[in-house]
């Protein structure tokens, strides 16, 4: 018997059966493929009636929608928004795999693609959604969702170097992280994709390079960088506001949020680096097992309304790919450092992290672990 025949996908029922099997000393041989949490194509295509069909079960990063907008939405439609939060895409996937029903979720583009491949997202009929025509044309057929049928883009982000203009002189390169004298106050993002992607760009490779030899070179770049770093951390906002970081590898929206918290915001700036710009976006999606897809559709429409989107952009500090008021609102927010913005040009010239497959995926994971334990 091949190992594959013994393998079982981990759905909730399989877990229970698997556990029982193990507990009984029978191993997992009893598990077969099946009972998967995947949806069926037919289910995903069922049209959604745009109407209030219950309270909205909402699943997002915390602090990623202006709470005032959520309150106003509750009032407008006489529903409650029941919020729960995840702190990473993996954590979101774990809950979805466990079969918990949410009405609206906010996955990143990569995860939209993954959810789609599992038939886990309801189709959103674009003709029924008001203001969807304000979405930038770059998103009518994005790489992660053909014809944008199962997702609507939300926040945009670009990765670069945040820096203290009053302390350091930057040169526009990713190498500034290790080479500009920050008096040992440089931080790398504790994110394997961003870190390896950055090293790939420095070495002149594509962001998503998977060739093992090239990845080894990128790993070596990171290992050489390590002694020049003070830390490897995702607490970018704390690092910069506490004065511990003068140069911090971060997402553009972090700088906006840092500026909201400091006394002299003009000193906190963002650099897009000339070797290449990682760009990405999140999206609204309605999972296939949503109990109240109608309310979810109303919510997406509500969030797309230019006035609301503009208010939201200012609150969360990330730009959104909607023409008109939201774009202007973000431009206004970063007037003194337009680098923070993600422009249409950036979207066209930047590179997005893709879902790596098989060997490539494992290679990235190994490279990161080798770097971390080095």
């Amino acid at each position, binding site marked *: 018997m091949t*190992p594959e025949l*013994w*393998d*079982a*996908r*981990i759905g909730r029922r*399989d*877990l229970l059966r*698997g*556990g029982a099997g*193990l*507990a009984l000393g029978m191993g*997992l041989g009893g*598990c077969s493929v099946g009972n998967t949490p995947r949806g069926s194509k037919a289910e995903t295509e069922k049209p959604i009636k745009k109407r209030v069909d219950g309270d909205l079960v909402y699943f997002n990063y915390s602090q990623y929608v202006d709470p005032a907008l959520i309150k106003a939405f509750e009032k407008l439609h006489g529903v409650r928004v029941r919020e729960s939060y995840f*702190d*990473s895409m*993996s*954590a979101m*996937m774990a809950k979805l*795999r466990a079969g918990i029903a949410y009405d609206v979720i906010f996955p990143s583009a990569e995860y939209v693609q*993954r959810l789609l*491949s599992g038939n886990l997202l309801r189709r959103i009929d674009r003709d029924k959604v008001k203001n969807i025509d304000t979405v930038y044309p770059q998103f009518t057929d994005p790489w992660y969702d053909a014809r944008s049928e199962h997702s609507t883009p939300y926040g945009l982000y670009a990765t670069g170097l945040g820096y203290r203009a009053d302390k350091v002189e930057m040169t526009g390169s990713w190498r500034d992280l290790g080479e500009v004298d920050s008096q*040992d*106050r440089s931080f*790398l993002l*504790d*994110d*394997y994709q961003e870190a390896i992607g950055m090293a790939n760009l420095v070495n002149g490779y594509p962001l998503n390079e998977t060739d093992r030899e090239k990845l080894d070179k990128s790993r070596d770049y990171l290992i050489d960088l*390590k*002694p020049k*770093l*003070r*830390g*490897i*951390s*995702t*607490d970018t906002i*704390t690092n910069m506001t*506490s*004065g*511990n970081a003068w140069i911090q590898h971060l997402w553009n929206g972090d700088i906006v949020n840092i500026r909201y918290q400091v006394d002299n915001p003009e000193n906190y700036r963002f650099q897009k680096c000339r070797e290449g710009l990682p760009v990405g976006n999140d999206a609204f999606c309605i999972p296939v097992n949503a109990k109240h897809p109608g309310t979810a559709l109303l919510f997406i429409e509500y969030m797309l309304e230019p006035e609301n989107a503009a208010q939201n952009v200012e609150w969360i500090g990330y730009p959104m790919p909607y023409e008109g008021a939201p774009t202007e609102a973000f431009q206004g927010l970063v007037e003194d450092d337009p680098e923070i913005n993600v422009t249409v040009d950036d979207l066209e010239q930047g590179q997005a992290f893709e*879902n790596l*497959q*098989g060997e490539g*995926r*494992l290679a*990235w*994971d190994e490279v*990161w*672990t*080798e770097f*971390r*334990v*080095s």
Partner: protein
Amino acid sequence: MSESRFASAFLLPGALWLLLLFVVPVGFVLALSFGYTDDLGEAFYGTRLDNYERVFDPAFVPVLLRSVGFALATVVLCLLIGYPVAYYIAIFGGRWKNVLIALVVLPFFVNYLIRTYAWIAMLGDDGLVNGVLNSDIRFLNTPWAVIGGLVYGFLVFMILPIFAALDRMDPSLIEAGKDLYGSPWQTFRNVTLPHTIQGVLAGSVLVFLPAVGDFVSASMLGGPEEVMVGNLIQQQFLASDNWPFGAALTSVMMLFLLVWMVLYLRAAAREAREAPA
């Protein structure tokens, strides 16, 4: 119903609890450690050994040693800080004893993560401490900060068992020691310490176990070198989407801790036999 049956009936809820919420989940972790992921990072059960081949890469040894080193340093510091605190409260606390213990426990109702953030705010380059001292000391992103975070995080687990042991001890024993011309140190060494060694051992284990597996302190307070086993495991579950490899790391870690646990239990049993009545 016989007495022993009656006793086992009382054991049942606890045993069920342990079975459902401990044994079964550990079984999942073990089972998953032989699994693999598909192209998109979805985990599957399997019968493969490649995760273990990866775990036994010598590159992980320094990380393991660092984790154990940090955890041992944490135990020693918790003991040095926790014993006098517990001693003071137990011996001199009088009618304030319970209030003092409540005060010790109180901060631990606040989430560990939030308490760690408080440390960053206090010890940052532009933080409170440097502001008050008008100094430029670099506290954060050092191994000391990681150990400090661990000590602060788990100190209560040292204080409580030692306090319990001291509280049970008859204070007249200390007086007896002094009456027999024991110096304060001799009295402590020959009377107090042997009476409370169970508490010390229990506290040490209770601090060591969470400290050795911790990832919060290293990731928030550490520098680029301060990687602990917990960080590697967290990476696999929350970023790389390689749950089977994370499960293999976890299983090896559990096995490693089990060895220490057995050593502790044997020591504790020996102490119990030799302890003064």
